[in-house]
Every structure is written in structure tokens, then in C-alpha cells.
């Protein structure tokens, strides 16, 4: 198997995740897109680990999964707060820094 197929797949996922982050108005969907990105990265890590027979790639992927989980937890807590404060999670309305 070509390395590139995995990497290109990961790149595709990454770019789709980036598109989702930029486009989506709901905070939940943005978080989901971020998950896409993280998973693309994970594929990359494991692919490189497999290329070099290094177990470190997998180990790092595990750590990434853990961090991603934590991040989703925190992110959802923030979204909850946001919902509580303004009854909406529409990111287009969050423009308090608008100058």
C-alpha cells in the first residue's frame, strides 16, 4: 500500500473538516468538524508510524484521541454556557469583538 493513499485520504478529511469549521453556523457542527480534523491527523500519525515501524505513531494517536475527548467535553461545556446566556448557539451572532 502506498503511503500516499493514507496521507491523501487524511488530507481530504482535513480539508473537509476545515471547510466545515469555516462554514457552519452552529457551534455543535463546528465541534464535529473539528473532530473530523482530529481524526485526519490521527490517520496521518498512524500511517507514518506504520511506515517506519515505529510504535510511537500509534501511541501519539492514542494521546490525541484522549485529548480530543477532553476537548469535546470542554467545548460542549462552553457551548452549554453560551446557550444558557443567549438562548442560541448561532456563531454568527457572537460578534462582540466586532470593531
Amino acid at each position, binding site marked *: 500500500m502506498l503511503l500516499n493513499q493514507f496521507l491523501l485520504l487524511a488530507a481530504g478529511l482535513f480539508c473537509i473538516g476545515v471547510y466545515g*469549521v*469555516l*462554514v457552519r453556523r452552529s457551534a455543535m457542527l463546528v465541534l464535529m468538524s473539528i473532530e473530523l480534523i482530529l481524526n485526519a491527523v490521527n490517520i496521518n500519525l498512524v500511517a507514518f508510524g506504520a511506515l517506519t515501524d515505529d510504535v510511537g505513531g500509534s501511541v501519539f494517536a492514542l494521546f490525541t484521541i484522549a485529548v480530543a475527548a477532553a476537548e469535546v467535553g470542554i467545548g460542549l461545556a462552553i457551548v452549554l454556557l453560551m446557550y444558557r446566556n443567549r438562548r442560541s448557539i448561532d456563531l454568527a451572532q*457572537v*460578534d462582540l469583538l466586532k470593531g
Partner: protein
Amino acid sequence: MLSVLAAGSVSKVSTVTHDANWFLEHAWIIPLLPAISFVVILFFGKRMPKKGAEIGITAVAISFLLALATGWSWIDHRDHVEFDAGGDESEVVDDHGDYLAPDELGNDEHAVVVDDGHSNVNDSVRLAVAAAEAGGEAEGSHPYVAVQTSTQWLQSGGVEFSAGILVDGLSVMMLLVVTLISLLVHVYSTDYVGGDRRYTHFFAFLSLFTASMLFFVLSDNILQMIVGWELVGVCSFALIGHWWEEKPNSDAALKAFLTNRVGDVGLLVGMITLFFAAGGGTTFDTITINEQIVQGQVGHTALVVAAAALTAAVMSKSGQFILHTWLPDAMAGPTPVSALIHAATMVVAGIFMVARLYPVFFEGMSIGGSSINLLSTVGAVTLVGAGLLAFVQDDIKKVLAYSTVSQLGYMAMALGVGAWTAAVFHLFTHAFFKANLFLGSGSVAHAVHSFDMKKDMGGMKKYMPRTFWTFVIGSVALAGLPPLAGFWSKDEILVGTGGWGLFGGTGGNGAYTFHLVMGMIGAALTAAYMTRCIYLTFFGRWRGGHAHDEHAHDDHAHDDHAHHGEPHESGPRILIPLYVLSGFSLVIGLVNLPPGLFSGSSKDPAGWQERFLHYIEPAGSSYFPAVAHGTPSWSLALISTGIALLGIGLAFRYYFIRVDRLSRVTGQSLTSLPNGLTTTNRLARAGHTLLVNKYYLDHLYTGIIAGFTKGPLARAAYWVNQNVLDRTVNLAGETAVRTGKVVYTKIDQGVVDGFVNRAGRASDATGQELRKINSGRVQNYATLLFAAAAILAGAFIILFAL
């Protein structure tokens, strides 16, 4: 009678010596004494017993004695100056270059003096050569040599300023005249101005004037002449305005001074021209300048300019037409002043100057050989014009003043026609008889306390016989009847015009027929107005005291003035000068008898003929032009005497016969015929009015010229100042203000500020635009972030990795 005198040839060697008799070399003491007396009187005069008069008289008396001694030395010098080489090596070479011994000099006419400038050539050798060159014919074998003593005052930039004296016949004559008349006037003044408020001051200025005039006549360079000229002018101003508390007097003094100033412009221009043209721009020496002109080294145009300018100076100082207006007004001064200054001495300063610088005029105006020139015409017009004016004067001094102007016209005319000796001789004789007449008028006025003939005089012969006789002698001398002084001098002037060809006379320097005619008319007028003056003053009945009273007898003494009583003869201090002067008027003419009158030659030193000419005229000298002398003739003498007698006769008939008879008939003391010519004939009345208004010259000067300058000219200048100059300045100011405004609004506000504002607005606009990036939305930021990252990464990869 037809002895022809060869025109003296002119010596090419300078006929000046620095080594002569003590009196001739030290003649500068003569002006010094009155100058010292001036200072002494100013400081100590008030304390002296006679209030300073004694200092003045002493000084002038000593000067007079010294002048006599100088005159005697001059005569001796003139007749006996010899060349005596002694043992000195002579540096005279003939045209072959051989040295000549002194006794060979007389034979060699081509001797040339080799002069290396160190006076190795002694003066006597020079004189010998001069005599040889003069041909030895004129004046015996003794040349006419002037004596010059000078010292260098300072030298600057190549120009030498020296001070010194030049003694020749002309100076000596003037010395004698000035000191004698000044002495007599001093004595006269002790009586006339006795008790005056400024007696001491008066004598101080008399001394100063005497010193100035003597200084002037002894000048050896033109710079000194200018100084002397101005000094006598100042003294004249001070003395005319002696009683300056009365405004007419101070006005008259100012008028004299300012009119003289007008002529002084000409003096300065003339002298400067001479300095540069004839003095070579280095020297002011009169002798040098004259010699240069005589030798023909000076351009003719320069001489014309100088002569014309100096003529203007003469016109003001010597009272020629049209600048004579100050002289009659100067009679506001005390009579001794008028006698001394405005008759005998100061007014002749101009004549003297012309005589001294005669080559300028002789060459500049081409006197020899023409029939009219500026100087002679001015003189001729003056003498007739002033003579006419003397007829309408009521004031006795004014009659004499116009008479002085007229006689000065004679002198100027004589100089203008080339009769140099005649002019100088007339100056000489005129001083005596005019001073005599003035002092006599002063004597009369002193008695009646007024100068008005018509109002306060008349019949004075009865009261003042001695004054009367001196006055008559003076008048006859003035009128020119032989054998008195005036006849000889006036006749010589008429001869000198050279216009007597019709009557057998020849010679002279030209054919000035017009001037001859004017001279004769003047003679008639002179005789006539003096006769009038004598009648009005001394004959008829006394009109003084209650002169305005119509009563025939005025023996009631209800007035203090009448208590003064009748006029009486003056004291000896007044009379003795009168005697002296009238005595001179009688005999002084005999010093210059024309040749041919007695047997013997004019060249005979012991003879009577032309003594004056012999001693005074610098014929044959190096600094005098070759002037021709006219031939006197009996016919001219007879005709001129006849004309004078005619004048006297006409006036005599009018006054002594008709007016006198009418006075006796009506019982009044008349001064003119009530239905005379001027009352009946309109032309005569117009002429009379013209004369009474002095040809309207005063009106011209004061009213028209001064008035124009004060009025329209001043207003025009003011207008120019306000509207042109001020407007220009204001315009400049306004333009600056307007420019400032424009710069402010357009440039400063518009461009500079606008630039700044636009820059600000631009950055503001840019900021406003850039601000839109800050949407506040995270996703926008993220978009930008990712896009930038992608682009940068792409750039890196493409540039560096591929």
C-alpha cells in the same frame, strides 16, 4: 595825442619773485592787525574807556601806515627791480645750448631758463630773461614783478593747499584804499554810532570786516579768495543787521546774504572749473592759473564756463543787474557801514576778483576783438538801469546806493571791454568820492534824524555849510566834471570801449560802440540825479520838524521834537573824514593822466602820465594777458563833459529854477512840480511807476519765485509725496497683505492643510475599510488564517522545495 602804446607782450617766464623788500614780503601783517583787534575788542572792548573803539582805530591806523610803507616799497620795487646775477652760476642757455653770462642776456632774445626746480636759478636771472623776452621796450627795462610769499598749509592726494599773499600793484592799491577808508570810517563812527546799544560789537565787526577785506585782496590762491569773499559777506550781514531788533533791518541783512549766496554758486562753479582746467587739478595758485591761461594751455570751453560762472558771482557781490536788489535794502545798516562796505570796499570785491583773474575773462569772453560780451553788457545795463532808479528815490542813502550800483556797472563794463586799468582806476577814485557822499549824507541824517529827503530835509545848506561843500565836491567828482577824479576815470572807461572811431579815436580791444553810448547816457543820468539830490537835501526850505504841517512857519514850540530845534553842523569827528575824502576826490584823478596831456612820454618814469597804469597794471608780466589800450581823444573828453553838463543843466532847470520858484510863490517847500510830466503824461507815469517798483524785480524774486516755490511747487511736491510715493508704499503694503491672505487661504489652508487633512482622511478611510475585517466572528478570522497559511505554505513549497 596819437602815441600808440604797443600791447605789452607777455612774458613766458613767471614774473613772480619770492624775495623782495621786507614790507612786500610781510604784508600779511596788515590784515592780521585788524583781526587781532577784532578778537581783543570782543573780549576786552566793553571794559575799555572808549568801549573798544580805540583798539579798532589803533589797529587800522597801524595797518594804514604799514600799507603806506608797502605802497612806497612797491613803487620802489617796480621801478628798480634789477637783474643782478652776482657771482651765481647762471643757468640760462641760448638756443645752441651754451651758457649765457648775465650781461649777455639783454642781447639774446632766445634765452631759455633751465630750471630743475631747486631754485638754482635765482630770481634775478629769471627776471632778466623776462625783460629780454618782453623786448625791453615796455616800461623801461624793469619788468613788472609781483611778490609772492606763501607757505604750504597741507598737501593731500597731490593737491597742495597753501596760504600766502601776493603783492602786486592791484593789491597795494586795494590795501591803501581799504585801510584809509576804514580808518576814516572808524573815526566817523565814534561820533555817528556813539551811545549805541551795541557800540563795541559794531567796532569789533568793523575790524573783522577790514581784516577780511585785506585778507581777500592779498590772497595768492583762489581758495583763499573764496574764503575772503565769504568772510566779507558774513561781515556785511552782521553789519547791515546791526539794529536787527527792527524787522526791516534783519530782513535787509538776510536779503543781502541770500542774494549773495545765489551768486556764490557761480563763484564756486567758476573756481572749481579753474582749479581743474587751469590749475591742473593740483594747485589753486592764482599766478599759475593765470599763466596757464595766458599761455593758451587751457581749453576755451572751460574758460567760457568759468567766466560765465564768475560773472554770476560778480553780479551778486558787486550789485550788477539782476542781483543788485540787495544793495539798496542794505542801506538799513548804519551809514558808516554803507560808506565802508557798500560803496568803497566790499562791493568792489567782485570787480577786484575779475581784475585779479583777468586772463579768465579776457580769454574766456574773447574780449579782444569783439563788440559785445556778457560782462560788458551786464555792466552797461546795470549802469543805465540803476541810474534811472536813482531818480525816484526819496531816501538819500538809496539815491547813493543806486548810484553805487550804477558806478559798479561802469567798472564791470570797463572790465568787459578790456579797459582793465580804467576799471581799476575808477574803483580807486569811486571809493573816495562815494565814501565822501555817504558820510556826508550820514552827517545830514545825523542832524535831522532821518534819511528822507522829501519829508525831513531841504535847505540844509544854511545849517550845514561844511557838509554841503564836501557833498558838492563829491557829487561833482561823481558826475565826472574835470578836473575832478571822476572825470579822468570815467573818460578812460569811455576811451577803453574803443567805439570812438567816429571821432578819431582808435585802439581799445574791440569796437564796443553800444557800451560807449550807454556810458554816455549813464554819465548824463548820474549828473542829473545828483543835482536832484543836492537840491532836495540842501536847497529850498527845511521841511523837517513839522514837515507834514502845512504852516509856513513853525515857530511854536508845542512839541518836544520842535524843541530839538534846527539842525546843526556835525562835530569834527564827522567833518574831518569828510574833508579828507573830498580833498582826495579833488586831486586823486591826477595820478593817471592820459598820455599826451603834458609833454613828455608816458614811458618817462618821472613824467605825470599814466602813473597809475605804470604802477598798477601788470603789463608784460607772465600772468596778465596782452591788453590793448585805447587812444584818448580831446573830442571824446569834450563830448562826455558836455553830456554831463547837459544832465546837470536839465536837472538844474527843473529843480533849481522851476520847483524853487514855485515853492517861493506858494510859500511851501516843494520837492517836485505838482503838474509835472509824470502827472500829465500817461507814458511818463507808467515809466515812473516802473521805476518806483524797481522794475518789479523784488516782486519777481519774493512774490513769484519764492512764492511759487512756497506755494504751488510745495503743494505739487506734497501731492507727489502723498499720492505717488505714499501710494506706492501703501500699494506695496496692501499687495503684501493681499498676497499674505492668498497664501494663507489658498496655499496654507488649501494645499498644505489640505494635504495634511487628506492624508488624515485617507488613513481614516483606510482604517474604516480595514476595520471590516474585524467582524467579531471567529469563523471569519479562521478563514483568513487558513487561507493565509495555505498561501504561505504553497509559496514556500513552490519556491524552496520544488
